[in-house]
C-alpha cells in the first residue's frame, strides 16, 4: 500500500529545513495549547467560570497523582510544568491525529515508477519517530539535570562513575547504558503505538469503511490518552528516583 510510509512525508522546505506533515500538525497542536493557555490567563477570576473550574479540577487531580509519587506538594509544584506539558502536548497531538481529514486530504504525487500516491497534508505528529525521539531526549535530559540540580554534580556523577569497588564500577556503567536505553524505549513506545494505530485504522477503512472503524477509533482514543499518561508518569517516576537521596546499598 503506497500511502503507508514510516517516514513523515516532506511537504516543502524553508531554506534546506524540510517541513513535514507531522511537523505541521504538531504546530497546530502547539497553537491550540497556546491559545487555550492565553485565554485562561486573561480571563482568570476569583469566582471561576466553567472553563476555569474544569482546568482547576484537572490540575488538582494531576497534582494529587504526582503527590502520591513524589511525597510532598512542594515537589509536585516544582515539577508540574514539565510533566503537565509532556502530558498535554502528547495527548493533544494524538487526539488531533484522529480527526477526519488528517491523513486523507493531501497532494497527489507521482513517483518515478509511474505510481501515483497521496501525500497527506496533515499527519499524526507522534507517528513520526522524530517527535517521539525529541520528547524522549528532553525527558531523559531533564531527569538528569534535575538530579544534578538537587543533589549536586558530584553526587549525581557518582551514580555512573563509582570507583569504590569493581562491582560498583560495573553497575555504574550499566546505569549509564540504562539511561541511553530509556531514550530508545520511550520513543519507540510512543511511536510504535501511534504508528501501529494509524496503520490499523487505514487498513480497516480500506476493508470496511462503514461502522467497523468505530471500535478501532475508540481504541485509538484510549491508546492516545494512555500513551500520554504513561510518558509523563514514567518521566515523573524517574525524576523522583533521581531526586531522592541515594541510599547506601
Amino acid at each position, binding site marked *: *500500500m503506497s500511502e*503507508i*510510509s*514510516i517516514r513523515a512525508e516532506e511537504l516543502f522546505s524553508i531554506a534546506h529545513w524540510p517541513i513535514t506533515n507531522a511537523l505541521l500538525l504538531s504546530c497546530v497542536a502547539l497553537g491550540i495549547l497556546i491559545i487555550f493557555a492565553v485565554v485562561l490567563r486573561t480571563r482568570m477570576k476569583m469566582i471561576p467560570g466553567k472553563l476555569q473550574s474544569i482546568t482547576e479540577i484537572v490540575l488538582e487531580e494531576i497534582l494529587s*497523582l504526582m503527590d*502520591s*509519587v513524589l511525597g510532598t506538594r512542594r515537589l509536585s509544584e516544582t515539577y508540574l510544568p514539565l510533566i503537565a506539558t509532556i502530558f498535554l502536548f502528547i495527548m493533544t497531538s494524538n487526539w488531533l491525529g484522529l480527526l477526519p481529514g488528517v491523513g486523507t486530504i493531501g497532494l497527489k504525487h507521482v513517483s518515478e515508477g509511474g505510481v501515483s500516491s497521496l501525500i497527506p497534508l496533515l499527519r499524526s505528529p507522534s507517528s513520526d519517530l522524530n517527535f517521539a525521539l525529541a520528547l524522549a531526549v528532553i525527558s531523559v535530559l531533564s531527569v538528569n539535570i534535575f538530579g544534578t540540580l538537587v543533589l549536586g554534580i558530584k553526587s549525581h556523577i557518582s551514580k555512573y562513575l563509582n570507583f569504590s569497588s569493581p562491582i560498583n564500577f560495573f553497575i555504574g556503567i550499566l546505569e549509564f547504558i540504562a539511561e541511553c536505553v530509556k531514550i530508545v*524505549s520511550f520513543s*519507540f*513506545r510512543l*511511536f*510504535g*503505538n501511534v*504508528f*501501529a494505530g494509524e*496503520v490499523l485504522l487505514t487498513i480497516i477503512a480500506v476493508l470496511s469503511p462503514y461502522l467497523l472503524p468505530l471500535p478501532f477509533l475508540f481504541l485509538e482514543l484510549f491508546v492516545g490518552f*494512555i500513551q500520554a*499518561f*504513561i510518558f509523563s*508518569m*514514567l518521566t515523573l*517516576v524517574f525524576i523522583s528516583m533521581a531526586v531522592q537521596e541515594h541510599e547506601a546499598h
Partner: protein
Amino acid sequence: MEAELVKIIAIGFIMGVGTLGPAIAIGLIGSKSAEAVGRNPEAAPKIQTAMILAIAFAEAIAIYGLVITLILKFVA
C-alpha cells in the same frame, strides 16, 4: 527461497513469537494487582498506578516487535 517469501515468513514469525512474552507478562501483572487490591482495597489507587506503569513497560516490548514488522513490510 526468494527474499519476498522469507520476508513474509519472518513477519509472521516475529509477530507470533514476539507477542507471546508480553501477553503472559501482562496477564501475570493484572492477576497479581487484582489479588493485591482484593487483599487491601484501601490501597487501590496506588496499586492501580503501579499496575498501569508495569503494563506499559511490558507492552513496549511487544511494540518493539511490531515496529520491526512494520519496517520489514513497508520499508525493506
